[in-house]
């Protein structure tokens, strides 16, 4: 690649953005498509849990198929495709590089979407692989891996060709995240495990899919956008490196805390419990960096759609991780294991943290790629409040309900059917939350369609200062 010289950093950004525009938008639109599919499935699954006859006579719409497909479309569709795009775009900025291998990347997106489509049909028609987070059968999952490999390769090429000397912390997280998810998927699809070992592998994988894939990408995004929009450097660069390496050291050992008390080696669960508690180190480190960077400039958080979502996400990360460390302890786990509480916990991770950070990233990236403002400030606010309040309601319902469920389950004098009945109001509240979240997603989808649709026409004047950093307009 020839070394290009630019008059100004603005000109360089203009160049890298026009270069990466189409490919990043393709990732985002693919992600948005699966967000819509996943939201529909979420509503179906949620209603079925308190209304079992609802669409209950159609085999392919039974709860046991719709619920795993909800997870897979959200995880491998919405969150993974969007993460791939967000990660690559941040690399173009922090490495001053253009995206290589574009044809391969497009082919990869095609394979990835095709894999998801075939996988969805397989799950609904009863050919699930049968393990949580790994339901997509190998025959279509390999297409998803085929979509991820060029992303990792592109990130490595950008790393080698970088025009900067310094490696910003986001690069560590993004490059490592791409390598980790591919390695994880390869190990997970080896078909050689015996039954209970497979259960251990299953949770080692599933916990790492969050910890070594979405967490790194979304922390990288928070590390990039928080200083960018506030105009302040991160609180401590040294701490950010400590946070990365301690995360890499401890997070991947956490998985067995999903099997406490189960028929797996006790030493393995003990190792995972210890590692879960050790996660306090990277979490506090990252929390100090993210939260202290916005202290004193909170008005910018309110005024920037990007920061609203990303700071909400960063706060959720601190909360969900500390909660995770404590719920791995045997005494607490005894109560909350096997309850809705854990479902609530997973949604703080995948939604209140990951999804909110991805929304925030798209709010920053799309106007800069397309050179067009977001259509409506009111709708952005509606999107934020529907999703923020929706997920808070979701978490309150699942976690208070779940703790109560656990206390009752551990009291053998309470008949099981009474617990089922007692949970109904919480499950209904969750369905209400699901409708709020989906309404938010529809609003966001409309905003995204609107901004992408206008991409080819003349750039308007910024409609509001809301979207800029310190009044500087598009950088």
């Amino acid at each position, binding site marked *: 690649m020839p070394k290009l010289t630019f008059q100004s950093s603005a000109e360089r950004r203009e160049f890298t953005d026009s270069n990466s525009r189409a490919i990043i938008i393709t990732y985002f639109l693919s992600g948005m498509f699966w967000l819509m599919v996943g939201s529909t499935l979420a509503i179906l699954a949620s209603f079925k849990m308190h209304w079992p006859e609802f669409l209950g006579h159609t085999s392919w719409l039974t709860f046991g198929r719709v619920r795993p497909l909800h997870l897979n479309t959200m995880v491998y569709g919405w969150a993974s495709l969007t993460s791939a795009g967000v990660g690559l775009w941040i690399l173009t900025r922090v490495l001053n590089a253009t995206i290589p291998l574009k044809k391969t990347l497009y082919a990869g997106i095609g394979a990835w979407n095709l894999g998801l489509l075939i996988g969805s049909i397989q799950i609904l028609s009863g050919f699930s692989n049968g393990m949580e987070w790994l339901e997509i059968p190998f025959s279509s999952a390999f297409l998803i891996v085929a979509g991820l490999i060029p992303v990792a390769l592109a990130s490595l090429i950008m790393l*080698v060709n970088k025009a900067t000397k310094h490696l910003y912390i986001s690069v560590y997280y993004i490059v490592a995240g791409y390598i980790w998810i591919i390695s994880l998927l390869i190990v997970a699809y080896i078909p050689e495990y015996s039954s209970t070992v497979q259960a251990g*592998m299953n949770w080692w994988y599933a916990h790492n899919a969050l910890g070594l894939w979405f967490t790194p990408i979304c922390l990288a995004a928070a590390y990039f956008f928080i200083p960018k929009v506030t105009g302040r450097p991160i609180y401590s660069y040294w701490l950010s490196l400590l946070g990365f390496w301690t995360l890499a050291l401890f997070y991947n050992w956490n998985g067995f805390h999903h099997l406490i008390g189960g028929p797996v080696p006790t030493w393995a669960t003990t190792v995972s419990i210890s590692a879960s508690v050790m996660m306090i180190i990277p979490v506090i480190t990252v929390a100090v960096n993210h939260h202290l960077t916005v202290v004193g400039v909170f008005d910018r958080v309110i005024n920037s759609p990007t920061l609203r979502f990303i700071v909400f996400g960063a706060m959720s990360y601190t909360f969900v991780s500390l909660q995770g460390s404590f719920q791995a302890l045997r005494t607490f786990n005894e109560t909350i294991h*096997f309850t809705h509480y854990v479902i609530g916990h997973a949604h703080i991770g995948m939604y209140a943290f990951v999804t909110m950070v991805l929304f925030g990233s798209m709010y920053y990236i799309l106007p800069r790629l397309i050179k067009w403002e977001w259509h409506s400030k009111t709708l952005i606010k509606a999107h934020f409040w529907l999703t923020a309040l929706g997920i808070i309601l979701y978490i309150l319902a699942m976690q208070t309900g779940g703790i109560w469920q656990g206390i009752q389950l551990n009291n053998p004098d309470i008949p099981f059917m009474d617990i089922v009945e007692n949970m109904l109001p919480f499950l209904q509240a969750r369905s209400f939350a699901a409708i709020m979240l989906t309404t938010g997603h529809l609003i966001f989808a409309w905003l995204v369609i609107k901004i992408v649709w206008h991409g080819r026409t003349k750039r308007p004047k910024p409609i509001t200062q809301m979207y800029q950093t310190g009044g500087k307009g598009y950088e």
Partner: protein
Amino acid sequence: MNKNLILVLGAFTLFLSSMTGLVFIPQQLANNEVEQDVRVAFDISQGHKIYIREGCIYCHSQQVRPEGFGADQARGWGKASIPNDYNDLTPHVLGTMRTGPDLANIGQRQPSRDWHYLHLYNPQTVSKGSIMPPFVWLFNIVDEDARPNQKGLSLPPEYKVPGKKVLPTEEAEQLVDYLLSLDQKRPDPETNAQ
């Protein structure tokens, strides 16, 4: 270049460490512990496939926790589970949720084949207020006088379809074979200790 290598190799090495510790070493230990050749009847392994296909694992666990950890045993769900309970059937069925009760010992707790058929056809018939979905596609609804050698399910009157009877399909039979095979007959209290 140095920093790039530290990043890539460091990240990958740390990944390999937990892969070895939590996946490969447990697999080696399990390989060393293999006792007799596990053979499962065809119908049971087919039933396990249907159990997976219909997503039973999303609401039912199959892992009884040891005495003193939760109330699994006090609820009569069985003995603490051990790796040999699973006949090495994969995908594993440990589950993570107890929206419904644990099924590790369901074959002993509910040995009635007819009860399981009714429950699968419509959970409300035997378990009022259940939020388990019906699995009607595992049943054939035929005219009362068709297939004279087969007796339909004895449904409570309010669930009867006039002039029709409900027959379990082969898949329902296999699923129930599997459920009834979940029976912790083993006489080995010592190995329960984890």
